[in-house]
């Protein structure tokens, strides 16, 4: 609804604009990857190991002589891909669960939501590690693990909105016209619960990227020699005193990305929340 207006309102403040620019740059970096990287990210060069930042190696080199900047650039692709696929999994699974649980209620709701409560009860990281312990380490499995971990959040948010939307008169109106459940869910309920889901997607992307970094940090995520910010952070840890750049730059990349997604999520919340929206649009005189 009124997508153009939403976007206009969204970018009224400078923070959302900065966040969007950062994220656009990040996506571009992920896409261009190889073309953008000044050096190879995986080729080792022992003669050039642990070089501090210089004109040739802006971010310095690591203990195997690989260019840190190139690895950070290629790491963007890994981080974003794992984050996006993981969130995609939890989005689809969570929204479906939430839609059916909220719309049908009763035993469907009980079964689906108790299952997701069980998932929710475990600490997120522990849960992801447990899943990876079963599936085995690797970035593909990390996506699945993170996806599973974040599914309950989407399920809950969707269900909560569905509970109020399913009571709307326009849903009753569709039913009175003869619309079946699937039509009502797809055409009337889903389009009207998107706002909180969009907000959650943005915030979950931040957490998913953080989780991927954490899993790679403990060696369960992206496997060497593929560059991953979390893995680079782990490798850099041993060299903090001799080569601070090995940990600082990937850490910075994680920080900026997570921050940008969170800022964008907050801005989206402000714009998509109807009460906030009215306040921003000026007066709503009801005389």
């Amino acid at each position, binding site marked *: 609804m009124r997508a153009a207006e939403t976007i206009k309102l969204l970018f009224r403040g400078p923070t959302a604009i900065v966040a969007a620019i950062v994220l656009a740059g990040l996506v571009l970096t992920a896409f261009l990857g190889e073309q953008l990287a000044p050096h190879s990210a995986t080729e080792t060069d022992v003669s050039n190991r642990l070089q501090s930042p210089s004109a040739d190696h802006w971010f310095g080199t690591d203990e195997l002589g690989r260019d840190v900047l190139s690895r950070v650039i290629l790491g963007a692709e890994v981080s974003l891909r794992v984050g996006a696929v993981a969130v995609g999994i939890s989005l689809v699974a969570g929204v479906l669960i939430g839609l059916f649980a909220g719309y049908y209620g009763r035993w469907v709701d009980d079964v689906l939501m108790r299952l997701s409560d069980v998932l929710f009860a475990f600490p997120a990281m522990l849960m992801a590690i447990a899943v990876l312990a079963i599936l085995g380490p690797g970035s593909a499995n990390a996506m699945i693990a993170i996806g599973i971990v974040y599914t309950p959040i989407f399920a809950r948010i969707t269900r909560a909105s569905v509970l109020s939307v399913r009571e709307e*008169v326009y849903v*009753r109106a569709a039913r009175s016209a003869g619309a079946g459940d699937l039509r009502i869910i797809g055409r009337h309920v889903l389009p009207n619960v998107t706002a909180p889901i969009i907000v959650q997607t943005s915030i979950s992307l931040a957490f998913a990227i953080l989780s991927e970094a954490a899993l790679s940090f403990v060696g369960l995520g992206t496997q060497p020699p593929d560059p991953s910010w979390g893995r680079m952070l782990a490798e850099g840890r041993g060299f903090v005193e001799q080569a601070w750049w090995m940990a600082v730059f990937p850490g910075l990349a994680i920080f900026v990305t997570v921050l940008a997604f969170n800022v964008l999520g907050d801005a989206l919340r402000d714009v998509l929340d109807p009460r906030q929206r009215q306040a921003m649009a000026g007066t709503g005189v009801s005389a």
Partner: protein
Amino acid sequence: MSDVLVRASGLQVRFGPVRAVDGVDLEVRRGETLGLVGESGCGKSTLGNALLRLVEPTGGTVEFDGLDVTAAGRRELRALRRRTAMIFQDPYASLDPRRTVAESIGEPLAIHRLHRGRAARRARVGELMEVVGLNPDHGGRYPHEFSGGQRQRVGIARALAGEPDFVVCDEPIASLDVSVQAQVVNLLVRLQREFGLTYLFVSHDLAAVRQVADRVAVMYLGRVVELGAGASVSSAPAHPYTEALVSAVPVPEPARERTRQRIVLTGDVPSPADPPSGCRFRTRCPKAFEPCPDHDPVLQPTGPEQAAACHLHGVTDR
């Protein structure tokens, strides 16, 4: 072909302990407007929904044109939905904010696969918009771009889309301004004549009901307490509740308002979860007498085309 289109027999709707509709027998005749008046909580809206099986009756039956609605299967119910429609009270809430008005009006067409094909459907939607007095070029707009009265016209166009026989109008003017109410009332009357529709006109507004309804049913606490031709119900009410209701409707004539004897009822409506024994109105009735607490009155004729459930016309029991 019977002249009764919709018939409810012993209809009951309970929500837990709450007896929203508690044993209603009612007929809606083909081509007429039956007004259903009563105050909030009397069950009039629930009754309207139950006739279309939009809420499940917990007892009794509803027949639509010979078909037992209460026993209808999925397919029959779907076919029934084409032949019936509903117009809702709040034109702001009854339209999906994320769909254009043309999509909303066209939804019954899509559901029942009528006027198939893009061009045919668009033409039909345009035609419907014209019929209700909307500019067909505005089909691509969203509900928030329309005023309350225009939105209600959209709701009416949607109700007409499947060419229904029976339309339940559930407080269709209650949330509109006075001058807009008149427009919508006139439109509904005009459409009925044009398309031979049968209406159940549910409203708390007796004056509006009198303007459109051939016959009027008065509800109190889940029951129909009086039923009759519009003029007789409002000018010669046979039930003390109807009498109080008619006397409480303010009339825009100062001299009459000043001298008029209002019957002011005391107390509140009892809870529909725990209605009084015998006659349900007896706790507030200015004319209650001995049989009222012990006998539950049934509708009995009090004149030509008029019936009331009151012991004043002879003691009865359900």
